[in-house]
């Protein structure tokens, strides 16, 4: 049997360390032993396939809770998912979750004293098309305080979960908004050492995504790991 092509190693500095002293919750949870090296086998180079038939898309977070309109500033988020060689990642599932416009999650663990919106649960699911493009409609999430340090506030953000083609390409991250003054103060965002890699977590305002008379548009392009070697072509 031919060995599966491995995925390429992580580029140094582009991923946050597990030991991040500025983010308090890491301190009792980060493994202290170095991760054990493992050559990629089919366990790592394959992954789940989600069909829209079994996992229906839900791309309008402004109305997917009750059918009534959620409160807040409508925004469109769109982008393209490619691998590290620039090839699109087609038909892959993207999961999204976020706080509402007031900075409150519809979650029993969130006790922030800001109003819930009965018409906004804050979860969605979208699939990329054949070219790797995705797009959804939501409400711009609010900032909220968290107990990490005195007067700590998370910048506005949307959580994303990506699968890609393999267990090795799984990615969970957060998308931020341009010009947010809280970004400079946030230990989670600033946990990414490489400034260019960090800044790629910030969506770009995009007039082409913006829909006239309706909603501002933001572009958030995402790169998933690519293969370590490209098979010979043609």
């Amino acid at each position: 049997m031919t060995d599966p092509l491995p995925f390429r190693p992580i580029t140094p500095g582009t991923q946050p360390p597990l030991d991040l002293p500025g983010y308090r919750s890491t301190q009792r949870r980060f493994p202290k032993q170095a991760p054990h090296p493992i050559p990629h086998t089919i366990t790592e180079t394959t992954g789940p396939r989600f069909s829209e038939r079994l996992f229906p898309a839900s791309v309008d977070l402004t109305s997917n809770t009750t059918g009534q309109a959620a409160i807040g500033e409508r925004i469109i988020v769109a982008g393209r998912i490619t691998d590290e060689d620039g090839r699109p990642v087609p038909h892959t599932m993207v999961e999204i979750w976020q706080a509402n416009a007031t900075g409150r999650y519809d979650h029993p663990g969130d006790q922030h004293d800001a109003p819930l919106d009965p018409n906004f649960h804050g979860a969605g699911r979208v699939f990329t098309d054949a070219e790797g493009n995705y797009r959804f409609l939501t409400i711009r999430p609010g900032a909220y305080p968290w107990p990490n340090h005195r007067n700590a506030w998370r910048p506005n953000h949307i959580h994303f979960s990506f699968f890609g083609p393999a267990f090795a390409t799984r990615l969970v991250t957060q998308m931020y908004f341009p010009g947010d003054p809280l970004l400079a103060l946030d230990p989670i965002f600033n946990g990414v050492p490489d400034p260019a890699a960090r800044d790629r977590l910030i969506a770009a305002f995009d007039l082409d995504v913006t829909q006239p008379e309706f909603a501002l548009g933001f572009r958030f392009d995402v790169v998933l790991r690519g293969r370590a070697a490209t098979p010979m072509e043609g």
Partner: protein
Amino acid sequence: MPSATASQTIGPYWHLIEDADWADLTRFGAEGEKIVLTGTVYDGDGAPCPDACIEIWQTDPPTSDTFPGFGRSNTDASGTFRLVTLKPGPVAGRGNAQQAPHIAIWVLSRGLMTGLATRAYFQEEALNDTDPLLQSIEDPSRRATLVAVPSAPGTWRFDIHLQGERETVFLDV
């Protein structure tokens, strides 16, 4: 070309996307040897982690319309996850090697900036003695952290220690 996008923590509110059905990989009618894979996630103080997300992926039995191969469970107030799946058989390894039956696991939680990869093997599988990954871990007590143990008929226990003396072996996937 840019490198892969940076990871950020899944945070404490990921349950907004949770579908509890996903913890049962047999829900579409898969037939085979049904097992429960359960365990508790502990932090470096030995305290349970009640907000983790545990995902599994297995290549055997092969995925099909009735078996997705992928599952997701929360950890409850006691830090315990519980997945129902089919017991995997041997998996092709690199070269001519054969891998012992195993389930790939991804651990996500508040306080973890990236997901942690590990594997659950099954105690007393003969192939464990020749599995390339298990045999590459020299310290037997570390190796044992990757082996699920039977706790009841059809139930396999796989506790996960994020940190500390019993720290689970996590993999550089």
